[in-house]
């Protein structure tokens, strides 16, 4: 399989639509994502949009959801589900300005249920937006130069970038490229402006989607930039990951990693999480060309028959890493250089204040599960609004759903510190290391995929695990724990040292053995169990770890050495 001609083309974009999955026809016939969205928005009989339009709106970062807590109650009331929409902002690298923050705060209070959610891909989600409010929200975002393009859908998702506040100069260089990559790989359809801003359709001046064509990508495509030694973005979970290579603070280029992806389906062994393979190095000047080459291979060869098998990771495992690499190089017109050495030490965040190499100050706040909301004990949303009003630097959302108040002049620090204290946001180290390294997806009640609680449950479960840690003297030991309400992996649970994925209300799969800095998948230890079984298993393994760990040995590594789970060397063996 070394040339294009010999590879199997029976499931890709070369086939007529009739031979492909129904979503391909939907995209092709949608007139570049317009569909009947305009009509659906006008339909006053329902708070939902037509089913096809709901799919198309994902390309505009909008998810139709409903309040699942009251779904059955409303069914009995002869009312349709309480539909609303989630809008996910496009925010490359998680960087936003205070004025953007203030606008998001305003929109959240007016249309988004008075809450904001920071996500594992470094952006904001506004939930609870009703259909009639979508346009005001989109236009409000436009006012501060934000949009929601491609935050979902079969296209490039939000581009991630390590937040590392210490390396100020290198971050600035890589972040600029991450932003450029996001703009570069974005869909071009005029549908967004027409539908959400009410602009007139302009006569086509050349193809509307020069790169994507009318069927876009086979599935989502995730790009991220890591700046060692931090692997906060979990670069191996990206379809296309770039690992920055620098020389004395000056960016040189990137190691290229392809084929990461965490989504899987329970009881479907052909689906599995997969970590990306590093295939070589490119200079920074070749970055956009590399993105085009890699994405176009997936665009042209990805499986468009079965969406559960359409991610780039399956294309790679089906065609072979060598073949895919060769095809990328053929399209690039040059061979990748050998990968440069690099070292990751963690995928977590360091909380609290740090001073960057340029003397600017940064403060990382722990935001449990990324949820920004006022509560009676902690007026977090008000506090962050007050900070945004005073702050002259930027904010950065971390891939761990935390928040950095970034880029302060040292003389401005006391004022921000006072605001943090006033709003109860200054407790950086008062939580266990486990809690600081915990992450949960949104799940119930809004996510349509969730089978079990996640964000609303993990804090309580962590409290119970903290009691075990305390008993075993492990309170200050950083251990990653991640929970999702379904197997799709939004909180990247399969690369946590303790992973939990929802199976049913109160029931989870328990995974152990993930790499502390995201270098290794974990493996299922218990299937479909409740809290008592989870706590019992963790009590045993953590106790064992506390007694017999080697110096510096991580819990994930220990779980494999002690034989609790086998090491997963490649994603396709995850289910073995």
């Amino acid at each position, binding site marked *: 399989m070394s040339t294009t001609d010999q590879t199997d083309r029976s499931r890709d974009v070369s086939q007529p639509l009739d031979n492909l999955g129904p979503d391909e026809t939907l995209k092709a016939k949608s007139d570049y994502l317009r569909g009947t969205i305009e009509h659906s928005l006008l339909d006053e*009989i329902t708070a939902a949009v037509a089913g096809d339009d709901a799919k198309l709106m994902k390309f505009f970062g909008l998810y139709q959801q409903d309040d699942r807590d*009251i779904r059955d109650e409303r069914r*009995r*009331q*002869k009312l*349709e589900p309480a539909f609303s929409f989630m809008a996910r902002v496009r925010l490359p690298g998680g960087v936003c300005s205070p004025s953007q923050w203030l606008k998001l705060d305003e929109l959240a209070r007016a249309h988004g249920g008075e809450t904001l959610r920071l996500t594992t891909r470094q952006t904001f989600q506004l939930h609870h937006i*009703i259909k009639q409010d979508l346009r005001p929200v989109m236009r409000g975002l436009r006012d501060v130069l934000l949009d929601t393009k491609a935050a979902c859908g079969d296209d490039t998702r939000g581009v991630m970038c390590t937040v590392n506040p210490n390396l100020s100069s290198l971050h600035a260089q890589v972040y600029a490229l991450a932003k450029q990559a996001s703009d570069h790989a974005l869909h071009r359809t005029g549908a967004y402006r027409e539908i959400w801003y009410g602009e007139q359709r302009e006569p086509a001046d050349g193809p509307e989607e020069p790169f994507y064509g009318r069927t876009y990508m086979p599935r989502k495509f995730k790009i991220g930039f890591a700046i060692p030694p931090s692997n906060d973005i979990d670069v191996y979970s990206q379809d296309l990951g770039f690992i920055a290579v620098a020389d004395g603070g000056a960016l040189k280029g990137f190691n290229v990693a392809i084929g990461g992806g965490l989504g899987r389906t329970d009881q479907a062994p052909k689906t599995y999480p997969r970590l990306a393979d590093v295939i070589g190095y490119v200079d920074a000047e070749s970055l956009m060309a590399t993105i085009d080459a890699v994405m176009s291979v997936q665009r042209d060869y990805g499986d468009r028959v079965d969406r559960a098998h359409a991610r780039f990771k399956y294309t790679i495992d089906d065609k072979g890493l060598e073949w895919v690499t060769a095809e990328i190089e053929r399209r690039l017109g040059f061979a990748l250089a050998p990968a440069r050495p690099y070292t990751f030490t963690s995928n977590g965040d360091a909380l609290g204040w740090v001073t960057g190499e340029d003397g600017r100050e940064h403060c990382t706040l722990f935001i449990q599960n990324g949820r920004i909301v006022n509560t009676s004990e902690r007026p977090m949303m008000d506090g962050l609004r007050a900070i945004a009003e005073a702050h002259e630097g930027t904010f950065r959302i971390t891939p761990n759903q935390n928040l950095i108040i970034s880029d302060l002049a040292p003389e401005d620090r006391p004022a921000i510190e006072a605001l943090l204290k006033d709003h109860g946001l200054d407790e950086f180290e008062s939580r266990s290391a486990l809690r600081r390294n915990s992450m949960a997806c949104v799940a119930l009640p809004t996510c349509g995929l969730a089978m079990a609680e996640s964000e609303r449950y993990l804090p309580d479960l962590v409290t119970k695990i903290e009691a075990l840690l305390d008993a075993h003297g492990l309170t200050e030991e950083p251990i990653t724990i991640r929970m999702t309400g379904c197997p799709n992996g939004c909180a990247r649970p399969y690369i946590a040292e303790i992973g939990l994925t929802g199976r049913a209300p109160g029931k989870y799969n328990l995974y152990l053995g993930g790499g502390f800095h995201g270098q290794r998948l974990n493996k299922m230890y218990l299937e479909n169990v409740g809290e008592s079984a989870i706590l019992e298993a963790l009590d045993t393994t953590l106790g064992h770890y506390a007694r017999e760990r080697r110096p510096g040995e991580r819990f994930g590594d220990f779980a494999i050495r002690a034989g609790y789970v086998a090491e997963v060397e490649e994603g396709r063996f995850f289910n073995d």
Partner: protein
Amino acid sequence: MATMEHPGSIITTDQWEMVSGLTTSLTHDQALWISGYLAGLSHQARSPVLAGGDAVASTPPTAPAPAPAGPTARVVTVLFASETGNSRELATSLAQAARDQGIEAKVADMAEYRPRTLKDTQDLLVITSTHGDGDPPQTAMDFFEFLEGRKAPKLPQLRYAVLALGDSTYEHYCAAGRRIDERLAELGAQRLVDRVECDVDYDDDAAGWIEAVSRALAPSAAPPGPAPAAAGTAAAGTAPVAVPAAFDKRRPFAAAVLDNVVLTGRGSTKETRHVELSLEDSGLTYQPGDALGVVARNDPALVDALLDQLGLPGDTPVTIKQQDTTLGDALAGTLEITAATPRFLDHWAEITGAAELQALLAPEQSKARTAFLQRHHVLDLVGRFPAPGIDADRFVAGLRPLQPRLYSIASSLAAAPDEAHLTVSTVRYALHDVPRTGVASGYLAERTETDATVPVYIQRNEHFHLADDDTPLLMIGAGTGVAPYRAFMQEREARGATGRSWLFFGERNFRSDFLYQVEWQALLKHGVLSRLDLAFSRDATPKTYVQDRLRRHGRDVYAWLEDGACLYVCGDAAHMAGDVHDALADIVAEHGGLDRDGADDYLAALKRDRRYRLDVY
């Protein structure tokens, strides 16, 4: 008629089966011929034949009563105007009482009566309810406009009597009857007996009036002793016997509660319930558009509070309408104990001698009285103006009987056999910091768990029945006013009716108050409902109501009317019905190229043709 029902004991079931079997196979011409043939036979059998039929379709055909002999025989017209069916019922009884005396009587609904025939009418007996605050029932508006207008003829030939029905919780509670009574006198007609004004417990007063009217009508020239004709009737054994349905207002059926859910979602400013009741084994049937009477009981907590205020034990014996009972039972199930009537105010002012109450009795205090009664229920009066040591009988003498409440039925027997569904808005409010509920809505909301039973009866409402299968329907409803349209759509779906239908529905908030939302969505999807337009007043600025939606689609609304659509309006009488009417007039004027008078004539013609029907409350 959409369906044929056994008309009652006037003929046997076997006969009815033969008749109904025959009628379904007849052509129109054949039916006409046979009706003439049967009439001829009847004429031969008893020579004096009844002139003028009973206009009330749902009452069993009555056996023709012979008219009194002699040239002086007069024809009595019993004219009623009804919102709830009470007037209709009384009119039927009155006509029967007249016929029992050998007087020829016909019954007419004011909605369909041609007022110009008044000048040829001899004896007119009017029974009318009052609607809202002193208005005639909606269906009688045309009649009132004619009678009170300049075109009304002098009526020196006319003898008349008026029975006015009302609800004394309203300030002008019998005004419609009073207006007719005074106007007829102005036009030169002779009053047979004085007008009687009845409160909601009208039974005794109405019976007294009927008796008085019957006496006055009796031909004074008639020979003493039983009139031969009447005797003949009795001898023939064909005197019609009242045909009570198995269950009725006086003997309600205990309907099991099948379901009772709150339709309004979380966060609603209202509580509207869907109540499903079983009519199984009751023999009760109804048509879409009919109402269900609910014989509610008072809130036990209110009964206890009242007993407490009175300082009387619940087992104190009392006598109500010659029936011995206890005070507790009477307050719980027999007497109205929430809102106080002006009569109770009089009564209580007399008992307590309270100056503040007595000051309100002066005729010029009517506004203050109304305001006071809005702020003071029976409980509040008894609490603020105590009457220590009051006698229980004396207390209850000021109260009026607890009246059943009527709800439009929200289901069709074709879709839900043996069931009647109600859409009930629970009335809740606080008065003097004490939470209160509506009598029936509170009863249905709080004291009817599943498996409980609710005493009910069917209240016919022909005026609001569903039009023919092919007739386009324009259905306008706000809030619980949507209930009969659910019945209409269920019926049309079950019948496979092909007529178009268009619903305008209004409420406060889309998310919580879109009553029966998923059902309308399904009806639209399946084409049973052709169009649906919504107005949620509190979602939009400025507030949007059904009449605004009508105006927005005025061109189409007018086209539907021109296509023969039947227009239904159901819901709030105080504002919605009038606002909708104004919108319709504007639409007709604009799209029909008419001035306001022309538009009013157009709508009046629709009403006459029974294509503009109201069920408002």
